């Protein structure tokens, strides 16, 4: 079983829809939770970052963490065609003296105009 499971998609929604992207994890040592966005033929870029249970909002994006259920979500409101990308969840843990990230496999999202 992978430490991080992510709904693979692909997901296709009409413009303006609310999108929900989800990851579950099994390692209680994960301390920080991130969402990266990766456009086609580009490297991932950090979208949201949180370390505590609850919600964090940034414009149309809301990151939700539930540590008791080991579940994180990213919600996109009023989705736009420019949101079409692959979304990767990532979780940070301490390995020896170094922090490392474990990534989900990514969800490919297409927002149709």
């Amino acid at each position, binding site marked *: 079983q992978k430490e991080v499971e992510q709904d693979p998609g692909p997901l296709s929604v009409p413009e303006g829809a609310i999108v929900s992207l989800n990851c579950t994890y099994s390692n209680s040592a994960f301390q*920080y939770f991130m969402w990266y966005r990766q456009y086609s033929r580009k*490297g991932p870029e950090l979208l949201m970052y949180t370390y505590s249970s609850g919600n964090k909002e940034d414009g149309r994006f809301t990151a939700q963490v539930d540590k008791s259920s080991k579940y994180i979500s990213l919600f996109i409101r009023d989705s736009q065609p420019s949101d079409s990308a692959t979304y*990767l969840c990532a979780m940070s843990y301490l390995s020896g003296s170094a922090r490392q990230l474990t990534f989900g496999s990514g969800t490919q999202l297409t927002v149709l105009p």
Partner: protein
Amino acid sequence: DVKVTQSSRYLVKRTGEKVFLECVQDMDHENMFWYRQDPGLGLRLIYFSYDVKMKEKGDIPEGYSVSREKKERFSLILESASTNQTSMYLCASRPSGRSETQYFGPGTRLLVL
């Protein structure tokens, strides 16, 4: 703006060739990482470095080596390329301290024939 550059966007090599992938970052970051990204598997850590001349194995180091002679440059070496090393290779950097954010380069898509 943090900039992470990778020497090639696309590479085609033959089985058995020695392959060098170069990564340069311009933000004086201590930590640098090499990942490979494959469909359905997400990003997997190959090697990372937290200082010049220092290196640590990641989750899948077999068949790879790395070199970090200068702080800004981190090289990934495939000693004898094999077809199962066909993949997208992503380099990332991160400052020391409590920051969890990794900054990614655009990736190198390697095809081994």
